[in-house]
Structures are given as C-alpha cells and as structure tokens.
C-alpha cells in the first residue's frame, strides 16, 4: 500500500519511463517538477508548441533543446489536440496541460469523439498526505462538477475507487458527506448519500464500504459519531470523502491546503490515459506527486 507521496514517487520510479506530452509549449515548458521528473527518470518529455520559443525557454532553464523531442504546432488549441492524438495513438502515455486555458483544454480532453474520456464522466480527486496520518486520503469531486447528479456521483465514486485500488487500498472506506447525518428530503445530497450507501451494501461498487449521509464531524471523528449515535466502520477511518457539490469540494480542498497546510496532489480520473492539469491550488512542491501518479496510472485504464 502506498501511504504517502514519497511512496508514490518511489513506486513511479520502478515502472519504467513514460512519455509525457506537454502542450502547448513555448514561453512555458512546464513547472520545475516536470524537469525534476525527467532527472529522476520517471518520464521522457515531448513538447508540442512553438518550436523556437520552446527551444529558447529550455535554454534559459539550462537545458539543451537537442535532448528533447519538440513537435511544431504554433496554434495553442491545435497543439493540445495534437498531444491528445499522440496518446490516443499510443505514441505517448501522459498529457500535461501547458499554456492553454482550463476550459478549452478540458473541452479537448473530455470530448466524447476525439478526447480521452473513458467513463461516463471524468472527475477530479484531491489526494492528501496528512502528516498526522499514516495513509493517504481523498476528497472528490473537487473541481469538475458544479452540482453532480446521483448518476454523476456514482461514476465519481467509481473513479475514486479506481485510484484507491491503484494506491493499494484493498477495501476502500468511503464517507458520503452532507450537511447532516440524517436523510432529509429538503437536503437532496442526504438522499444521494443514502443511495450510494445502499448501492455499496449491495456490492454495486465491489469490495467497498460507503457510509452516508455523514456530516464531516461524524466522518472524521469516531467519538463525535458515537455521540451522535452513528456507528460505522467508516467513521474516523475514511479513505475517500465524497462531497455534495463543487463549492463544498473545492473549498474543503482550499482550506486543507492553505489553512491546514496539508500536502495535496490533484488527479483527473475517468480518462483512457492520465492527464495532468494545472489545478490552481497545487503547490510547486507537490506537482511531482501529480506527475508520479500519472506515471502509475498510465497503462491501468485503457
């Protein structure tokens, strides 16, 4: 089982180098972590973009452009599309977002015809490495879905379970969060959580336990749950926290990063090939964990 970001980096170092396409490139040739991943032997980069600008930037960063494959496509949208074509054709393993806006980049990645969408929907997991715990925890969806429907939440759950399995968590425990721990029709997310819990009971997600609805105090603290009369193997032990909407998810991730200072890496799930996006709240020092996760994910979901 991979218990922290260090384990993830080490595991990625054992899989063999993956080809990572960075697009669009030019004035940007990736964060420091990308070059660290090259030096560590995790990846071989391919740059798609403005060749002259890419070469210039690489030289400024102290690299020799001759050491890298650079494919010319000056138009940012077309270069990102080309990068996606390269992984679709299995000529590369991973796509990494360069200097193209989030919406146009994700539109290309998640396009049903020409993109990399594998599952019904893609979703985003914030993976945390809390220093006080000897294991990793996940919060999802923390970026993509404004107000996921119950059908979306089913796929969001499956996507997170897939990541949990990659990390070696054999029987993931999932807390389906809402505002309260009782089912209340006035708060639809309590009903979604109850449905997911029932589905898990019927083994519709495989070897997975889901408890819900749970409010966050019951989910993270067993004593608090006991006071509220909630008895479950998930309380205080959750591997995955499913949030009711993006406001709860993205803001929870932000408080964990900026106020708690917990190391966090973001992972896009539900695609045929790993995609590293510019999650706005990932710090430079945690970006290497995102690349290492992409390396581990590569080849697991085709």
């Amino acid at each position, binding site marked *: 089982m991979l218990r922290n970001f260090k384990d993830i980096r080490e595991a990625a170092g054992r899989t063999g180098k993956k080809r990572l396409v960075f697009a669009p490139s030019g004035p940007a040739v990736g964060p420091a972590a990308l070059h660290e991943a090259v030096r560590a032997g995790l990846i071989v980069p391919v740059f798609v973009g403005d060749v002259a600008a890419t070469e210039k930037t690489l030289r400024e960063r102290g690299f020799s452009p001759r050491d890298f494959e650079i494919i010319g496509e000056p138009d940012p949208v077309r270069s990102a599309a080309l990068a996606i074509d390269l992984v679709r054709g299995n000529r590369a393993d991973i796509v990494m977002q360069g200097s193209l806006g989030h919406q146009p980049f994700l539109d290309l990645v998640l396009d049903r015809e020409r993109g990399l969408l594998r599952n019904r929907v893609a979703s985003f997991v914030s993976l945390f490495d809390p220093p006080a715990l000897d294991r990793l925890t996940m919060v999802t969806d923390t970026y993509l879905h*404004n107000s996921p429907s119950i059908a979306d939440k089913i796929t969001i759950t499956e996507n997170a379970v897939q990541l949990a399995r990659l990390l070696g968590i054999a029987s993931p425990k999932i807390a389906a969060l809402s505002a309260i721990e009782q089912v209340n029709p006035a708060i639809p997310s309590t009903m979604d959580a109850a449905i997911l819990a029932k589905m898990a009971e019927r083994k519709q997600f495989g070897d997975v336990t889901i408890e819900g609805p749970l409010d966050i*105090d019951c989910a993270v603290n067993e004593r608090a749950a006991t006071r509220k009369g909630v008895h479950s193997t998930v309380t205080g032990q959750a591997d995955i926290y499913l949030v009711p909407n993006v*406001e709860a998810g993205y803001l929870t991730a932000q408080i964990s990063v900026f106020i708690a200072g917990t190391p966090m890496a973001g992972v896009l799930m539900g695609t045929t090939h790993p995609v590293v996006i510019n999650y706005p709240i990932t710090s430079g020092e945690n970006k290497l964990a995102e690349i290492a996760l992409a390396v581990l994910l590569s080849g697991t979901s085709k």
Partner: protein
Amino acid sequence: MIRTFDDLDRLAAEKGPKRFIVLAPEDEEFMLAVKQSWQRGFIEPVLIGSRDKIERLAGEAQFDITPFEKIFESDRQGIANRGISMLFSGDVDMAGKGQIPTAFIYRSIIREESKARKGTMVSVISLWDIGGLGHLTSLTDTGVNINPDYESKIEIIRNAVFLFHLLGYPKPRISVLSGQREIGGTLESYRDFERLRDVARKGELGSCEVIDATSIADIFLAGRKSFASYAEIPIGKAAFPEILLMPNLSTGNILVKLDFVIPHVRRRSLVMTTRGPVIIPSRSDFHDAIVGEIALGVVTADRVRKA
C-alpha cells in the same frame, strides 16, 4: 478588539456571571460544561427541561443545582418558547441549546423577533480562532438556511457584521465564498458576490467591506498564478477577512467542522438575536468546547446590553 478565544475566556470571567438559560441540559457533556462555566464565574444557570434527567445528570456531574432556578417542562417546543421569551423579556442575558432540536429554537426566536417587529432572519455564526492569524474570523450561515438566496445572504451578513461590531471590529471584511472556477460557467454564488459587493460599496450593508476574493485560494494567492511552497504564503500575511459567507448549508457545515482535523483551528458557534446570544453547540461538541461557546455568549451578552 477581541482577537482570540483566550481573550474571550478572560473577558467572560471579568464580565460574568450572566444569567444563562440552559434549554434541556440533558446530556453529560452539556451538564459538565454548565458546571465548569459556573465554577469559572461565567454564568448563573437557569435550568429548564425534564426534571428526572436534569437531576440525574447533575448528580452524575457532581453538580449541586439546589441554589439555581429550575423550570420543569418536558415538551421540547415548550422549553424553547419559554427560554427564548425569557431572553427577549430581559429576564436572562443569554440562552443555550442542550438536547433539543435546533429547529425548535429557531422557531421560538423567529416568533419573538416578529413580536418585537424586528423580523431579522436566524443564522448561525461560527467563529474560528486560527493560530497565527492575529484576529478572529467566522463562517456563516452554518446551521439554518439550506440554500440562501441573495436577500437571505444580506440578512446573514447583517447578523455577522452586528456580531463583529460587538467584538470591536469597526469595519469587518467579508468574503462571499463561491466554488467559481475558470471552468463550468458562472455559479449563482458568484453572481450573489457581484451584487453584494456593489450594495456594500454603496454603504447599504453598514460599516463593512465585501472584498474581491471569493475563495480561500483568492485570499491567500491574491492574484498570483502559482506558488512554489506553503512557506511562501503564511496566514499572517494574507488579507484574511473576518466573515466568510457560505454559498450553501452543505458547504458551510462541512467547512466549519474542518477544525476537527486542523489542530491550530478552534470553533465556537452562536445565533445572534437582537436581545442577546443563543449558543448552539454541535451535538458532537465535548464539554470543553461547550464551555468556550458559553464564554463567547457571556461576552456578547455583555456587549449587546451596552450597545
């Protein structure tokens, strides 16, 4: 200006004891909290609830309640109505929720406020004391309104601004939180931010400021596109507001209890009425947390009467 919970505890001992009506203290942790708050000179309790339970739990907590006023009543709504009407008549300085559904208390507050023709909306304000920040902050509404609309958000802001004025902050800063990203179109919560910022600028919300940041990331990054490490963005350097307005209840309830997993964050919650505070401990709070909420009630009760 009250900057930390330690300030509150010190002031509570100075300004107490306040007459505190305890609505159904029928749980061990709660009774223990009442006992300790009395021992520390914060309160003079008035106990209302089921006779059997109150006497049994006081016995278990080794708390001699013979000197205190007691009102025996077993109907839950009856307890809430009686207690809250005593707060509004000035018979007690503050009230606190024990083992009684929160909705009953809200109903009683709304009834009393409408009698007083104030018509204010009930909202829960949860204060956070974040180590290293240097001032108090708060999350609201964390307990009542499931999906507050723009008009409701104005009332929620007014309640929080009222509290911060009492705590000695002349112009509290407000962040209207949203899950707005560069993807997914424009969220309702972001539209609310734009409208609230505009009315705040016109002075329609009183002495306060709606800042441009609509997320915790905005507050910390202040326009930066990226950051190399957490060490670059210490909380003491962030322009962190006093009031974080929650987009909805699910978000508010999840965020506010993240203190469970952040060692340097502490939480105390209350409802401000025009006649004084009603403290609303979470059903999962332990006695030390409840004592802290009582201290917050004592200090705000003292200041409401003087205002």
